[in-house]
């Protein structure tokens, strides 16, 4: 935690920034400054205006009112390239690396040079290697980005942003795709960069993280700045109530359940698909209405398990039964037909941006909303409208395109789609990745209700706190093996982590 507030002239000043989109006021006269050596955390719910703020600083939004000052001089970036030329580096949530190119080639893409300048591969490779070494990343510059894991890509992206002469570094939830050990590495790096005199703007949802790195905290809500205060003077509850606009709610009550009927039984289950992390020898049972977490670092096979259950059943062996009947889904359609639904971790695989909220919500259960192939639009609306308001989906209307919604609300719509298919087994791959505290609480509450109504839920999470808060049990996978099962009473970070790292629980 930053105990001292760095003095000196601000690196970056935001003066009365406002930006209005068609209907919504995304930013409303937001002002604060970022000093050299400071990690300035910007916190806010989905839709609070954080993304817009970042896009203004990064030069991606140009028609704003107000002023940006860099080292005391007013600047107005015409485009992202202008921003980076001024030493303002931005790391967006969506990765911007080109998968088919090598790491070194990706580094070269951002270098300002004439398109016809001759390429010096050796120099490019050396420059990339130096930048990777700075983050202590053991990666070859010649490796293709598409072969890297999401976490590795994120780190490479950061290394690339830092390769130039950076004065201000803007990071938009850089840890949302990372596991604990990578998070730690990243946060140490952020602290080191601040010490070197860079002004860091750090956007995050995760409270632990915020209190660890922040020098000062600015909270945004509904496009307005709620407060900017030194991190040492802000308590956890103050931060949460600032974000949500009301007092923080109490933690959930532990659930006590009677023994239940078996829904999914897995015996000697293994998978060796060439394209995925393999696993083998899995034996477990999931009860009706049970909420079970799957924990495992990258490469543990946890993600493969979810996908195989959902309908990539090729290259598997062993025995799987669903409600006592053999189960082997050859594809998503077959899985849905058996009452198994999946929510993918990547929002690009779970949300259809061009389609309306309504069409997104009913896509998996359209058969129930149509007769003889004709969609009954009134019935759709009658089913979706109450469900979406119960889930607190914030959307201009049900006919609005899904891409107009914030990330958390898109995720809620995707979850609604799964629920409308009335699944017996709901498989969720990191269901709250990259969504804010309030939306996450909504999703958790909803999942508990769904489980209570008899749906079995199997979810993977990269967030230990989430695994502990939500699960009746947690299955821990390490290197493709089931290494531990932790019951509700024994879920703490230390146990989970040591099991995930392959040790005994």
């Amino acid at each position: 935690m930053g105990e001292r507030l760095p003095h000196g002239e601000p690196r970056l000043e935001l003066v009365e920034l406002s930006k209005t989109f068609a209907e919504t006021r995304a930013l409303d006269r937001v002002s604060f400054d970022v000093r050299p050596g400071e990690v300035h955390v910007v916190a806010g719910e989905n839709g609070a205006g954080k993304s817009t703020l970042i896009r203004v600083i990064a030069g991606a939004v140009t028609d704003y009112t107000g002023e940006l000052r860099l080292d005391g001089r007013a600047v107005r970036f015409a485009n992202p390239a202008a921003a980076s030329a001024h030493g303002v580096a931005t790391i967006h949530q969506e990765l911007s690396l080109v998968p088919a190119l090598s790491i070194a080639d990706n580094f070269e893409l951002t270098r300002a040079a004439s398109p016809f300048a001759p390429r010096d591969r050796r120099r490019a490779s050396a420059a990339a290697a130096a930048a990777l070494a700075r983050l202590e990343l053991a990666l070859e510059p010649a490796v293709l980005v598409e072969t890297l894991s999401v976490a590795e890509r994120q780190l490479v992206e950061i290394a690339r942003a830092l390769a130039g002469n950076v004065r201000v570094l803007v990071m938009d939830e850089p840890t949302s795709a990372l596991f604990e050990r990578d998070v730690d590495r990243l946060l140490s790096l952020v602290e080191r960069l601040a010490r070197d005199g860079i002004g860091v703007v750090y956007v995050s949802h995760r409270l632990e993280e915020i209190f660890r790195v922040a020098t000062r905290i600015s909270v945004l809500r509904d496009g307005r700045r709620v407060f900017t205060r030194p991190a040492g003077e802000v308590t956890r509850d103050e931060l949460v109530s600032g974000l949500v606009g009301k007092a923080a709610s109490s933690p959930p009550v532990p659930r006590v359940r009677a023994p239940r009927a078996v829904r999914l039984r897995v015996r000697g289950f293994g998978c060796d698909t060439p394209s995925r992390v393999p696993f083998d020898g899995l034996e477990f049972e999931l009860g009706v209405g049970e909420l079970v977490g799957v924990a495992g670092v990258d490469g543990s096979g946890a993600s493969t398990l979810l996908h195989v259950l959902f309908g990539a059943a090729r290259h598997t062996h062993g025995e799987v039964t669903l409600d006592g009947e053999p189960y082997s889904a050859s594809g998503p359609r077959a899985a849905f037909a058996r009452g198994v639904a999946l929510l993918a971790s990547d929002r690009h695989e779970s949300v259809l941006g061009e389609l309306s909220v309504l069409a997104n919500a009913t896509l998996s259960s359209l058969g129930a909303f149509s007769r003889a192939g004709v969609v009954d639009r009134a019935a759709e609306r009658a089913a979706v409208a109450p469900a979406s308001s119960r889930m607190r989906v914030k959307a201009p209307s049900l006919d609005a395109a899904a891409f107009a919604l914030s990330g958390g609300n898109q995720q809620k719509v995707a979850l609604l789609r799964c629920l409308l298919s009335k699944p017996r087994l709901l498989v969720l791959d990191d269901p709250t990745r990259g969504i804010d505290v309030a939306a996450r609480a909504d999703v958790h509450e909803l999942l508990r209700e769904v489980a209570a109504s008899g749906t079995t839920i199997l979810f993977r999470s990269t967030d230990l706190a989430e695994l502990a808060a939500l699960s009746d049990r947690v299955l821990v996978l390490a290197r493709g093996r089931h290494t531990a099962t932790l019951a509700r009473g024994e879920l703490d970070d230390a146990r989970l982590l040591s099991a995930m790292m392959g040790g005994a629980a």
Partner: protein
Amino acid sequence: MRPFVPLVAVLVFGCVLNANGAFFEWQTHRAVLREISVGGILASGMTVVIVSGGIDLAVGSVLALSAVSFAWLTLLHGLPGFFALPLVLLVGAAAGALSGVLVAWPRMQPFIVTLAMMVFARGLAKELSGGQKISTYVQDPSGAFRSVPLPAVFEALDGRVLGGNVSVVTLVFLGSAFVTWVILERLRVGRYLFAVGGNFEAARLSGVPVHFTLIFAYVLSGICAALAGICQAAQETHGDPETGLGYELDAIAMVVLGGTSLMGGRGGVALTVIGALTLGYLEKVLSLNAYSSELRLMLTGVILVLAVLFQRRFGRESA
């Protein structure tokens, strides 16, 4: 409202120039509607394919193949129209199904698949007709030439109804546009088409029958091309293997001018009808006012770009 702007602009332009009042006569408008009909039928099917995220370059060739098949069945073999018509639609459906299967399973790029189908169908049309137009002046197996009467179905399709005020092909065009509209906006498969075009992977993971949906799109486009081919044969009173050259590009232009996104997942056939009217009226206004055909082509190109630029939607950012 935005799709209407280019159309209204062209109509205003037509009223102002008006070619000594010719623009205000119904027969001018009747002619425009007739001239866009064959292209409009193709564009209806094309809309469905483009919404699904693909493209169908084969429609011009399938049109020729269908025109030749129709003439071959009715003129050369004397098959009655009501029998020949469904057979030819089947030919179009088969061509579309072949493209669709290649797009759906090996996941080949629609551009390449339909480019191949475009060449193949043209070859088949020439093979079937022996490279000649199949007209009412037919050659018997014995080698002797004779003239056959033009079947009633040709005359019916080339005729006019409602007191001679509307061409039959225009009704066929509006009919196919309506059927396509129902499919896209009211049927379950329509929702699937938007889903597959908007985000294939998310659609697949949502349990959408993605393969069926893709094949459906190309079959529908093939059927529309066959229907257009039959109308073309009726209007030309023969089956010409060289007909319909470049029609696929006109159809794509109509779809795009309406505002349907070539990226898939967004658009609609009502927009395509507006696009077809815009192109048809542009051509008519320029020709009525004695602009040379060279200048007309150049102006059409310029206006196509301007109209699409104008329609491009902004504000895809979210807060």
